[in-house]
Every structure is written in structure tokens, then in C-alpha cells.
């Protein structure tokens, strides 16, 4: 068996819907509904899906930034939490654990404190965990910034003095400051220009190699995910429909939703025939997901069984899991 750094077991995150004067709970938005997967050490795992399908919520719940509703997460051989067994790390242990798992955020304009200098932002974690004293931390911050392609003199400046791409580099430097083993990139390039996207991606790739990082890369950009990630999970309405290595998934998509999603990638050759699968209808509300297979309302191959039973996840090729009644 490979060395699994992260193992997620039937993770759930529901947001309560409250109504009325006494905010009675009238239902749940099932943002993440029973997903399980693992990430091997040194791997880049991509998480794709349309907006609102729960990608970011998954990332945040894994890091325990959001309170999980169900399921368990094991990181580097240690359980972080297990809701069913009512187990969770103590606050101190969790704080220590956070050194090893960091996050790069989507919006470089919102993720840096505007009142803090760049130096203070990057050194914050090192000082909190007392890895270095103040002077060493500043030196380390300069090193990290240079590594991320910013001049060392940046430490005295403030976030508003930088452009979006530069701010994202600051965000990356901050996440590397604690020397983590695992990084979650929550659409780190979605808010950037295409030309800057390429630079930041190259930077991330270089850093991942250099620091031996494992990465959960959340994105809705399929082309990026294909070349950037080793394995990919496709999400629809809070659940995985298909998980596989990026080669398998792109060469041989099994699930009807994945097929439709991949057919939406623009072709680079105008002459090339495009077979666009256009799905009917809208994404159902995660507050009231369809019974059976969640995709059955829009699936072109829908059968009776799809409306009743939730499909099991089957391994059709090695490392290629699909949840569909077709197979």
C-alpha cells in the first residue's frame, strides 16, 4: 500500500437553514455530503466541479476551519477528528497540527490583513509557534519572499502596495512559513489574470517539488487540473461522482457528468470537431438534493434504479472509482 498522508472518511458538512423569529432549524444545506478519499504523500490531488458544489467547503472542513457534521479525517497517521466516535484533537494539539497543514486562499485581496506589514503577515505563524525568534523569523521571511519571487525589501511594505499576483505570492510565502507537509490550494489562481496564473502555477509547482509538499488543489479550471494534478476527484452537489488519475479521467471519463464536464473544455484547434454534451436543467438545490443518484435529474442515461438507489462506488480500473448505475 502507498503512503497515505491524508485519509478522509465519509466527510459531511451541513449548514443549517434557519427561519422565523426563533430561528427554528427547518433543514440543512448539504454542502459536503459523504465524501471519502485519500491523498498519497507527494501527490497533487485535484478537486473539480462547478461553482457551489462544495469544493471549498471540503477543503475548509478538512482543515477543521469549519466544524464537520460527520466523518473523520486522518492526517499523517493521526486522527484529527472523528465525529461518529466523538473524537477530536485538543485545542493545543490542533494548533500544533496546523503547522503541518496550510492553506492558500482564493482571493489575494481578502486573505491578507490590510493593517499588517508583509513581514508581520509572513512571520505571524513562525512567531506564534515559536519556531524562530523575531530576528530569525524576519530573515526567514525575506528568504521565503525571494523564493516566491518578491524582493526581500517587501517585508516593510503593506498589502495594498502590491498587485493581485504579488499578493498571491505573499499568501504562498505565508503558507510555506511553517514548513508544512500538506497544502490546500483553494482556487489559488482563480482571481488572477491568465498571464499571472501561469507564473503562479509554475511557482507552486517548483515549490511543491522543492519542499516535498503534498497538495490538495481545488479548481474549476479543467485544463489546469489536467496538467497540474496526479489524481482528480470530480464533485457534483457535495459528493464525488468519479475519482481517478488525471490520465484515466481525461482519456476515459466514465461518469456521464464527467463526460459532460470534459466536453465543455474549449478545443485549441478550431477545425477539431467538438462534441458538446449539453445538460438539461439546473443544478438542484443542495438543501433538497434528489433521491437516489444526485445526478439523475440531468443525466442523459437515466434509468429507474437511479431515482431510487444511491449508486455504490466501484473501482472500474486500478485507481479509477466511479459512482454510477451504468457500470
Amino acid at each position, binding site marked *: 500500500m502507498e503512503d497515505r498522508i491524508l485519509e478522509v472518511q465519509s466527510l459531511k458538512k451541513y449548514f443549517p437553514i434557519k427561519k422565523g423569529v426563533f430561528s427554528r432549524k427547518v433543514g440543512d444545506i448539504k454542502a459536503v455530503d459523504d465524501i471519502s478519499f485519500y491523498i498519497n504523500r507527494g501527490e497533487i490531488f485535484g478537486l473539480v466541479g462547478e461553482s457551489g458544489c462544495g469544493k471549498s467547503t471540503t477543503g475548509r472542513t478538512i482543515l477543521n476551519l469549519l466544524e464537520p457534521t460527520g466523518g473523520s479525517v486522518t492526517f499523517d497517521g493521526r486522527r484529527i477528528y472523528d465525529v461518529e466516535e466523538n473524537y477530536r484533537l485538543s485545542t493545543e494539539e490542533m494548533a500544533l497540527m496546523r503547522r503541518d*497543514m496550510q492553506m492558500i486562499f482564493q482571493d489575494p485581496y481578502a486573505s491578507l*490583513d490590510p493593517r499588517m*506589514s508583509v513581514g508581520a503577515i509572513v512571520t505571524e505563524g513562525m512567531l506564534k509557534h515559536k519556531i524562530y525568534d523575531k530576528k530569525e523569523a524576519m530573515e526567514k521571511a525575506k528568504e521565503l519572499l525571494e523564493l516566491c*519571487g518578491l524582493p526581500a525589501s517587501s517585508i516593510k511594505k503593506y498589502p495594498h502596495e*502590491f498587485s493581485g499576483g504579488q499578493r498571491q505570492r505573499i499568501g504562498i510565502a505565508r503558507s510555506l512559513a511553517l514548513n508544512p507537509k500538506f497544502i490546500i490550494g483553494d482556487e489559488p489562481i482563480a482571481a488572477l489574470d491568465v498571464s499571472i496564473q501561469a507564473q503562479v502555477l509554475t511557482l507552486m509547482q517548483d515549490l511543491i517539488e522543492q519542499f516535498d509538499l503534498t497538495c490538495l488543489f481545488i479548481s474549476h479550471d479543467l485544463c489546469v487540473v489536467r496538467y497540474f494534478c496526479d489524481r482528480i476527484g470530480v464533485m457534483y452537489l457535495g459528493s464525488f461522482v468519479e475519482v481517478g488519475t488525471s490520465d484515466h479521467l481525461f482519456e476515459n471519463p466514465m461518469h456521464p457528468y464527467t463526460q459532460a464536464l470534459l466536453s465543455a473544455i474549449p478545443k485549441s484547434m478550431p477545425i477539431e470537431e467538438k462534441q458538446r454534451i449539453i445538460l438539461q436543467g439546473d443544478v438542484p438545490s443542495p438543501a433538497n438534493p434528489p433521491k437516489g443518484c444526485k445526478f439523475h435529474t440531468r443525466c442523459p442515461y437515466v434509468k429507474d434504479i437511479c431515482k431510487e438507489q444511491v449508486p455504490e462506488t466501484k473501482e472500474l480500473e486500478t485507481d479509477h472509482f466511479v459512482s454510477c448505475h451504468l457500470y
Partner: protein
Amino acid sequence: MANNIANKSSNISKVQGEEGTSLWKIGAKRLIKNKLAVFGIVVLSILIILSVLAPVITPYDRDETNLTNTYQKPSKEHWLGTDELGRDVFTRLIYGGRVSLSVGLVSTSISVIIGVLLGAIGGYYGKVVDNIIMRIVDIFMCFPFFIMAITIAAILGPSIWNVMIISGILSWPSIARIVRAEVMTVKEREFVEASKALGLTPIEIIFRHILPNVLAVVIVYTTLGIASGILSEAGLSFLGLGVKQPQPSWGNMLSAAQNLRSLRLHWWLWVPPGLLVFITILSINFLGDGLRDALDPKLKH
């Protein structure tokens, strides 16, 4: 390889200058460009200097009576004349400034400390804590300020300390509300989540990230709160429930001149304190408005 990455992008990220300018520096620059705010700062500084240096500036004693020299018109010896006991009005005026300004400062500090703490706790933790705090705020907001102040002053007796405490304790709810609302917006920003991911505790997050980001609003309301503190001191003293004679304050000087004879014949007894209250409040409000404009993060320079 590291150098390689650095070189690749250093051309793009050429930033001029070594020192950064914080948002505070930008705010200060903007404030100085605002003429009304500068007027406010100058007037307030003069008033503060006058009242702090009162014993040096005037040769007279604050409470020294001279019954052979009552109701003198303004002259070279007595710049603003003398009152019914022959005390120098100018002297009493600048000593009164001490009282008024310190009541304004101390009462506002009390309300800011209570308001910011409770507002931040309520806004950050939410749920039950927030509910309890906000209901207390609602209760406090139900009381009509002056009636409460008069009642408490009547029970505790008139003194400068009582005025400070009363006006401080009665005016924290509005600050708590503003701070709570600001905290609720700031805590949803991604940088708060980022510090959670770094492992910071809620207290560290509140003090390091949230409070600095709501400080601008707090500063503006503090300035404006000082004005209302001064006004309520003047009001209470005027009613005889604030600062007790012979200690002078602008309010009780006005109150002392409150008779037909003085109103008709001795203008120097009531015009200067009234004017000073007016000018002080005006300057503070100018400064407060200037600060609001200067510190507003939505404005671009």
C-alpha cells in the same frame, strides 16, 4: 532553482522604495489635507495647552475671592473681568477647561473600553453570548440619558468623578453596537480564516487582526463621543448636579451667571464659557468628520 524562480519574477515585481506606507500613514496624510480637521486640531491643541498650563499662564488663584473687586469689566488686569466674588473669569475659564476636557476624555474612555470589549466579544463569538450582550445593550438604550444621569447624580451626589462615571456607563451601548457590526463583517474576511489556519487562538485573532481593523471606526466615534461627554458635563453642572462650586467648569460658570442682572449687565460671565463649549464641540466634530473621511478604507488616495 530558487534563484531561478526569483529571477524569473523579479522583473515583474519591481516595487520602488524600501519603506512601506501603512494605511495609518495614508490616513494621517489625508487628514492633514482637510482644512476643517486641521482647524479642529489647532483649536483643541490650544485649549489643551491652556488648561494644562493654567497655573503658569495666569497670575491669579482659581478660588481667590476679592470682595472689593466684584463684577469688574474686562481690563488689562482681568482679561475677562471678575465675577460676583471678585474671582478672575479668565483663570476660572481655563481651569474649567481642565474639568470639561478631562470629563470628556475619561467618560469616553470608560464607554470605549466597555463598548469595544463587549462589542468585539459579541460580534466574534455570536450566538448566545451575542444575544445576551445585545439584550443588555437594548436595555441600556431604553433609558433616557438625561433623566438617568440626573437620578444617578442626585443619588451619588454632585462631583466630577460621578459625572465621568455616569456619562461613561450610559454611553457605551452605541459604541458596542457599532463595534459588533464591524467585527461581524471583519471576521468573515479570509485573512481571519488564514490566521485560524496558522493556529492562532480566538483571543489572538481578536486583538491582532480584528481590533486593528475596526480601530478606525472606534477612533471616529471616540472623538465624537468626547464632544457629547463635554456637553453632558456642561448640562449636568448647569443643573447643579455636576461639578460643585468652587471648582469651576464651563457648565457651572454658565449656571452661576443664570440671573437676570448678570444676563443683562455682565456678559463676560456667560459669553466666554458658552462660546468655549461651542468652539470645543465644533472643533471636535470637525476633527471627527475629518478622521472619518481620512480613515475610510473604501476611499482611494
